[in-house]
Structure formats: structure tokens, C-alpha cells
């Protein structure tokens, strides 16, 4: 009998330890598939973040490194500069990339480092228990903003794609989501382009992915998916923010 569906070789056999309804598993699967489809698994080096997906170093079936919180882009730079033939991807959450690692992501983008960044935006600190993230929406409740984010006290959320699009460096920036099958397919397409850019030595690609955190949000998985489309994507519009391939045409 022909096997129609299975775990891609880009993922190890380790069971994912994510909460029900979490978006990490979907994105992991997409990357796992792409490592195989693009035939890059054997020359890939992945950078795991700190946070819920710290165990990404156990999940992706390729060489992996686990650096300090926020420093993925710097570690990626070090690896890519000495191993330009390897495909280097940094998988980061919003606390990692938009709080403690803001400097590293901006400067890796400004240098147009030839790396691929997978940026999971779930608007909250997941692993540490649902605290305010740089991407927490105005009015949104977290364990450190129990009455909802007050922009007068806690400032405004960080729009990473828009921020990076202000720089000349980045090659490709797109914001996607994994709340619907259609958006999952779009996310895969975007990630594929991001990896291909690196294979073609084009430079820095970042794919921001709006992703569900039912546990951190206090919602059911179904509510969380709806919330992404109805609320989160209104504040963080999906779409391409930089596409130098098109500009070059």
C-alpha cells in the first residue's frame, strides 16, 4: 500500500510537547517538509530559541544549536560566515526576537545576512507563564498586565515586519498566519521563498507568523484561531513588507 501521509524526514521521531492548539507544531511541520523538499536537510543548521520552542533542537532532524535568549541572529551570523554553504535558520518567538534580541535582529537585517529567520508571533510570553510580550496587543490581558495592556504605562506593541522594512538591508519580509488551512499554505510558500533566497545567496529573509497560544490567551484552540483573524491580524496585517526580488525586476 502506498503511504500518503507521514512525518517528514525533516523532523525527528520525538513527540512535540506543545499545548493543544499551539501553532508551533504546524510551523515545525512546514519547516520539516521544506528541509526535505528543498533537499537542504543535510546542509541545514537550525538555531533553537529560548521559550516554548527551546526544544526545537530535539525536533528538527538536522544539526542544531541552542543559544542565549535573543541571540539567534548573532549566532546565525557566526555560523553562516564560516560555513557559507550551510543553510542557516533561526527559529524565534516574540520575547526572544522583539524584546531581548531586538538589537541582534535589526542589525542582522541591516547587514542583509544571508540567513532565514522564522519569527513566531503569539503576542505573549508562553513558556514563562503568559506575561506581557513586546507584541501583546493594546488592551490584551497577560499575567503582568492583568487589566489589559495600557499603552500609557506599557507602551505600544512592536510591529517587527514594519520596523525591519524601514531598513535598506533585508531582502524579503512577509507576515503570515497559521490560523486557517489557506494561511498555512501561504505560510509554507513564504517559508519556501525564504529558504530559497538563502540558497540563491540573496540575503536576509524573515517570515513573521501569527500563531495561536490558547493557553497563554485563556482561550480554546478554536477561539484562538478565530481570534487571530478577527483581532490579531487587524493589528498585524498579513502581507509582504519587503520583496527585493520584485524590486529588482
Amino acid at each position, binding site marked *: 500500500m502506498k503511504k500518503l501521509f507521514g512525518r517528514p524526514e525533516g523532523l525527528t521521531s520525538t513527540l512535540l510537547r506543545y499545548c493543544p492548539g499551539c501553532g508551533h507544531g504546524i510551523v515545525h511541520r512546514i519547516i520539516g517538509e521544506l528541509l526535505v523538499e528543498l533537499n537542504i536537510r543535510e546542509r541545514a543548521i537550525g538555531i533553537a530559541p529560548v521559550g516554548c520552542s527551546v526544544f526545537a533542537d530535539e525536533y528538527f532532524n538536522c*544539526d*542544531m*544549536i*541552542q543559544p542565549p535568549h535573543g541571540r539567534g541572529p548573532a*549566532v546565525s551570523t*557566526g*555560523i553562516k560566515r*564560516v560555513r557559507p554553504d550551510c543553510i542557516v535558520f533561526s527559529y524565534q518567538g516574540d520575547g526572544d526576537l522583539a524584546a531581548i534580541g531586538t*538589537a541582534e535582529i*535589526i542589525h542582522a537585517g541591516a547587514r542583509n545576512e544571508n540567513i532565514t529567520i522564522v519569527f513566531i508571533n503569539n503576542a505573549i510570553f508562553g513558556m514563562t507563564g503568559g506575561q506581557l510580550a513586546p507584541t501583546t496587543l493594546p488592551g490584551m490581558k497577560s499575567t503582568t498586565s492583568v487589566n489589559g495592556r495600557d499603552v500609557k504605562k506599557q507602551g505600544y506593541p512592536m510591529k517587527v515586519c514594519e520596523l525591519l522594512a524601514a531598513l535598506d538591508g533585508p531582502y524579503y519580509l512577509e507576515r503570515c498566519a497559521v490560523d486557517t488551512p489557506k494561511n498555512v499554505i501561504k505560510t509554507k510558500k513564504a517559508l519556501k521563498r525564504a529558504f530559497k533566497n538563502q540558497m540563491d545567496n540573496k540575503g536576509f529573509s524573515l517570515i513573521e507568523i501569527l500563531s495561536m497560544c490558547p493557553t497563554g490567551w485563556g482561550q480554546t484552540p478554536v477561539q484562538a484561531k478565530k481570534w487571530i483573524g478577527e483581532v490579531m491580524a487587524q493589528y498585524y496585517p498579513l502581507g509582504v513588507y519587503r520583496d527585493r526580488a520584485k524590486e529588482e525586476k
Partner: protein
Amino acid sequence: MNKANKAEKKLMYGNHALVEGVIHAGCRFFAGYPITPQNEIPEFMSIRMNEEGGVFVQTESEIAAINMLFGAAAAGKRAMTSSSSPGISLMQEGISYIAGADLPVLVVNVIRGGPGLGNIAPAQSDYYQATRGGGHGDYFTITLAPYSAQDLFEFPRLAFELAEKYRNPALIVADGILGQMMEPVEFSYEPIDPESLPEPEWALSGCKGRERRVVRSYDLRPGKLEALNHQRTKKYEEIKKKEQRFDALECDDADIVIVAYGTCARVCSAVIKMARSKGYKVGLLRPITLWPFPADVLADLSKKVEHFLVVEMNCGQMIDDVKLATECRSKISFHGRPGGGVPTPPEVLEKVEAILGGEK
């Protein structure tokens, strides 16, 4: 600019000698952020790495620099950075992770006066930081203290070899005087071709033809991290046993031995000559490795030497190690110039004379 060729002797700045030493040692990766008094290192490195086809990255911060080293070292390549005290403090997070991941890197600290922004004058006030780990967690860094331009040329190779042998970060600690001093430097060994260096069996390079590899500093499984730290402690004990390095000058018949490293050892080597010409039996013990501290030779010396004088450009940090090594068998005095002061030979000699009470 002093571009080096093999088997040549040239008059060079210490900082330039260090750069040539790093390149001679087969290192082709430098990432760093400017800070006085070590800016000649990244400046010259940017030129030399370009000439040698190596990587030079001027980073956005010291934090980024040390993490680029983390990446380059994990990929199995020789990698180094240089900075000065406040910058080294920023790097401590990364150094701790690199130690936790058992990776070799070279970090050069051209120490300045501290704490805080301090000043840009030469100092040795980061001794504790360099010899007690520096960042969080149970770890140590191999720490070398050069005292000449020749040392600055030769120590990078030694640092890389020790770092790779024990899979541990290595530090070279210098100061602004050593970096700015011009001296003849002999290119004392054939340059190492980076391509000739074997690829470590743990290096990340893409998993073609082998099992995938993971570099990490954490282990959340119950008891596993504890076991790993015990294992690492065994490694540190081995380093302490095998890698103590020092230079002894006129210690055999000495009534008093000065213990000093780096620039202070240079100053004190002049003191020895002055003291001997006056008939005082004074010797100099210069630790070359600050960690592992050359405790064994001091323990031996303490059985016959009545008095040790520790001279440092700080408020008295190495004195702890001397006390531990000598188990308080001998009297120990201290002369220190913190905050960018440099001891002069006459003031150290005065201290020696005071200790000896004029007895010859």
C-alpha cells in the same frame, strides 16, 4: 602597518603582534566592537582578515560579538574577539553559554580601570572576573597573561590549543601598556593553514553522511546537568594539574619572592635587577596562566621563602590565590595601584626594602 611574513623579526606594537599571532594560529574569524584601549586590534584585524580571506565583523555590541563566536566555534572554526573590561562584562552571558556548550573560543581582554566606565588607563582589576568564571554557573576559563609583544604573538596559538584540547573558552588578559609597547617580535613558528586544522567531531556542518549533532548548554533531565557539571569539574581539575605555567626569575636563593603578572611582572623584573645590585635576594614568580593558577610552584617556594610580595594593578585580587597556594606558610604583602595606576620600579623596591627592614 606591520604585515607579517613567516620567519621574520619585526618591531611591532603589542596589539599588532597579537593580531599576527591570531592569524598565524590559523584563526580566520574575528567579531568585535570598538572600545579603548584595544581599538588597534579590530582595526588591524579588519585589514589582515581581508588580506587573508578571513571573516571580520564589526558588531552592534559585545553581546552580538561573543554570540557570533559561539556560532563560529560551534561550526568548528577557530574564532576570537577582543574587548576591554566593560565590554567583557557584557560578553559574560555568552562566555557562560560557550563554557556550558563545551566549545573553544579565544577572548582577549585589554583591561582598563574600573569598575563601571572607569578610565582607559591600564589595569589588572578584572583578575577575579577572569579567574573565577566571570559569568553565571560552575565554570572556569583558561586565562593567559602575556607580558611582552612576543607573548602577544605566541599566546593566541597556545590559547587555541588549550581551548580545543579541553573544549573550553580561553582568555588572554593584557592592558594598554602591553598593547601600545613596541618591541621586536619573532615569528617563531610556521603559520598554521586553517584548512589543515582537523574538523572537530562535534562541529555543526550539516548532517550529510552522519547523525545530526546538537550544541546546547542546557539539560533539563533530572540529575543530568548535575552529572555534567561533575564531569566538567573533573576536566577543570585536570587542567589545574597539567596546565600551570609560570616563569621564575632568581627564585632559587630568594628571601623574598615578588609575584606579579603582565605589565607588573615587567616592572618587577627591573626591580629584581635593582634589588640584586643592592645585595637583596629577591626573586620574581610570574604566573603565565592566571587560571589554572601556578599553585604548585608557589607551594614549593613557600617551604623556603619567608616572604612573598604580590604586585598588581588593582586593589589586591591575586593575593587570595597566593594565600591559598602557600597555605599561609609565608608572610604575604601587597602593593597595588588600582584605577589605572602603574607601579614604578623605585616604589616597588621601596616596598621590598621596607619588608626586609634593610637586612641584606
